[in-house]
């Protein structure tokens, strides 16, 4: 059953170049890490898909990279504003893993803090484009941080970890080669977020799958 509610904004805090948007939890459950939420983007036509970053009691925290009109509208909210939120939606990370290693790149770090909490703070490896962006690493306990030109894939340990990752597409593709069984959180522009519109369909092993239903987290083989 779909759940949508208007949540009130508790805080809007800068984290490096990103913005942490804290909402009162209301009727929305945090779900499984890696699931997605459709956040109303004030003044825009479409809501924007976001992963949950933090889930302290009574709150939902989203980490937002203000790259375009929708994410900027979200980053410009003020405490007390109300925001329509639909979710949790789709499939998140499987948590029944033995040796979890969280890997994140850039804003792909977003789902890792909540994931880390739910897994009891496993080790993490996170990469950023600059020291400024790397300030977000403070949200992930036990994180090793690399900054470009170093890439996370260069620091991936040899041993057989269960990789759970989120980040830019080239990073996910590289990880899939290095760790074929990795759980990877993919992205595609989405309009509805719950399977109605087929905007987020990607070809997966020869079949078209809606990333908002089958994903966003997939084990291995996307495209």
């Amino acid at each position: 059953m779909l759940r949508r509610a208007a949540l009130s904004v508790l805080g809007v805090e800068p984290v490096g170049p990103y913005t942490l948007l804290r909402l009162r939890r209301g009727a929305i459950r945090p779900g499984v890490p890696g699931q997605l939420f459709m956040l109303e983007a004030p003044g825009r036509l479409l809501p924007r898909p976001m992963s949950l970053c933090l889930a302290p009691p009574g709150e939902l925290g989203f980490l937002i990279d203000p790259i375009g009109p929708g994410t900027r509208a979200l980053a410009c909210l003020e405490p007390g504003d109300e925001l329509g939120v639909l979710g949790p939606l789709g499939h998140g990370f499987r948590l029944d893993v033995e040796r979890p290693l969280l890997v994140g790149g850039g804003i792909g770090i977003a789902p890792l803090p909540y994931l880390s909490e739910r897994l009891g703070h496993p080790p993490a490896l996170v990469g950023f484009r600059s020291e400024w962006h790397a300030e977000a690493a403070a949200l992930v306990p036990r994180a090793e941080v690399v900054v470009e030109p170093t890439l996370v894939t260069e620091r991936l340990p040899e041993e057989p970890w269960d990789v759970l990752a989120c980040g830019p597409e080239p990073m996910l593709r590289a990880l899939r080669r290095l760790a074929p069984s990795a759980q990877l959180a993919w992205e595609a522009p989405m309009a509805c977020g719950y399977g109605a519109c087929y905007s987020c369909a990607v070809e997966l092993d020869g079949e078209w799958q809606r990333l908002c239903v089958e994903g966003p987290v997939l084990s291995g083989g996307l495209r």
Partner: protein
Amino acid sequence: MAETLRRGAGPERRPPLILNASGCLDALTAPAVARSLDAFVTKTVTPLPRGGNPPVRIAETDVGLLNSIGLANLGIDAFLERQLPRLGELGVPLWVSVGGFAADGYAASCARLEGRPEVEALELNLSCPNVDGAAGTAAEIVLACRRVTAKPLYAKLSAATWDLGETARAVEAAGADGLSLVNTLRGLALDERTLQPRLGTALGGLSGPALRPVALAAVYACARVTTLPIVGMGGVARGRDALALLAAGASRVALGTVLFGDPQAPARIRAELAEEAALLGFRTPAEAVGAAHGREDGRSATLDQRLRSFPQNTCKLGTNEAVDRRS
């Protein structure tokens, strides 16, 4: 004129709000919202299953939405077997949007839907901007479908033609029972940083606010040349958008894009519509159908009417980002 048009609205006092063929809402996942509509048009179903177009399939622009879904659907077989029975159980009148790539493809699907009591009406998608290839003229397709079905047949047209009125008359002559106006216009958006097309197919279909004046014009023009009932759509987001379509000559209003941002839109728009119509002195919104054709000479409102009292609004107006002049 207004009298003829008003007939199209039927006896209901409740202004009919329907979902357009778009997949902007999934009736099975959101049944409560689906039930707040007076009818529900499926996404277009084609003879064979279609995966649709390569990603990216959706892009929001300043004034509208571009999509390039490419008629992704399960095909008529799987639709009849797997989806239709479940949609039928919702208890909302169901229209099926039928697509094809030649007149016989459309007709074959119509024939198979003919015997299904769950289906109230058929809409022929004669105007998808995301598939290539001419499918024969609109009238040919309507004619072929008319032969195989007694269900109401609506012709869904695009505004991207100079002779829309002629097309409307041609499909009426071919046996259509109504018009659905309008489908999307062809549009393009580029990524600001790479200057590459944002959609995988480059061009896509433009819906949402940018379509409003174009949809209104199409409904108005067709209402003047046919007596077919019209389902009006294109950028409806507020009660006043729906009221304008009714006034232009639509007897039903369909919602699409607005549902992405506001899934509760049907109830909200219905309430706003009733309020706006009452404010203008109509007992029901259905009474406003065709009102824009009221004056035979087509003269516009005079200054005097403009100066009549009207609620004074507040300063909490957003500016129109579309005319933002900062770069």
